[in-house]
């Protein structure tokens, strides 16, 4: 295997990684919020996914 990659046992995460994980958590929250809002609107007969009116 290429020497580019160190094994997981040898490497700890670099400082940027925690920001990356925070960003992906925000993306998940956005997905949950938008999906919940859209489905609530749809099942109430009030509209749909943002933009689909």
């Amino acid at each position, binding site marked *: *295997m*290429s020497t*580019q*990659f*160190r*094994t*997981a046992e040898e*490497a700890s*995460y*670099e400082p*940027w*990684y925690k920001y*990356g*994980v925070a*960003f*992906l*958590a925000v*993306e*998940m929250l*956005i*997905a949950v919020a*938008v*999906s919940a809002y*859209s*489905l609530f*609107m*749809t*099942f*109430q*007969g*009030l*509209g*749909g*996914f*943002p*933009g*689909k*009116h």
Partner: protein
Amino acid sequence: MHTNKVEQLIIATVGFFWCFLMWFSTAAFSPSIAAHYHLSIAALGLLASSAIWMAPVGRIVAGWASDRYGAPRTFAVILTVCGLVSIASAFTQDYTLLFAERVIVAIAGVSFVVGIQHVAQWFDANEIGTTEGLYAGTGNVGAGMGALLLPRIFGTDYHAAFLWLGIIALAIAAWYLARGQAARTVKQRDTARDRSDLRSAVFVWSRYIAVALMLAYAMSFGLEIALNAWLPGYFSRGFHNAILALGFTGVAGVQIAAGTFAAVQSFCASLFRPFAGFMSDIFQRKGWTPLPFIAKSLPYAPRLHWLGIALILISLAMVGLTLAGLSGSLHLSVVMLVALGIFISFGTGGTFALVPLLFPDRPGTAAGFIGGVSTAAAIVFPLIFAASTNMHVGYLTVAVYMFVPFVLFYFWAARYERHPEDHGIFNRALAVEEA
């Protein structure tokens, strides 16, 4: 030039996001285009399907080019060509010419594999899942953002939209060339370039694990874009009365509801993808290898197990979607659909957390094959869904006759405890000596 891996990730992600935006911008304005040119339903369907035509072969070529010439140059060429043609399409008054131009702009979608290669050349094994997930998941949102924002910003003026999308694409291309760097070291860049010949490409394409990952991506991303095209019609027809009972009236009202369910699936599949990559990293760090048959001692074995779990969950959710549809419950169908969207993200994120580790010296060639051929599934799956006598049963048909064999093949290809990337057909004729 002083740079760092995070800057390279941001450049790749922005580039891919814009390419995805351009790729699906035609669909965002298809009602306006249809009204302007008085398109028939058949013509509209042809326009919609044309977005995928160039992907299978285009991604194979783009993946090879990123190894051969480096990701910055390859990405810049894609952005420049698609940007210029998008600008040209803003001034076109003939539908045939517009159609041809939009097919060319849709080539922007092949940039996915270029960014995968770029990211693979900069990040370490223990963070590759999260990194590739952030790149691909955030970039994928470009399609949803396009559908959401483009009509709101430009109304029905698709000419202005195509013009501005093209101009900004040119600016991003310039930024990519100015600040993009192909790999963390010259040795990595040169290794990828030196391994970009046809013999080496055929070697990658004929590896069992590469074929297995391609089928895994067909089950996930291929399924996602197939569902994007299929679900609005499915919910409109399969739950017509249930949607009317919610209070929606007329064709437009039913389409709003049906379109919402399709959009939620795609939205979840995109925005949970970074999490799926992160989960691959977690499995790796914890050393989890719960599944039978799949290798347990390889350095990246836990990632193989995470992907195996994802593929099983996708298959089960497809069965669940059929059962929910047959039950007649719209609510249950939507719940199964959201779950399917999330499991699809597990599959997409899990696949490309593995590709750079299995083929570290030829990441573009591998990504091009796996990410390219799999998009053909987007054409095949809807045909199977539509062929069933009962429209709810298509998901079960695909799960039983396609996904189960795919998953079994994945387990078989991933069983090797040593160098799965070396096992395939044409071994002796294509043997490549490691440096």
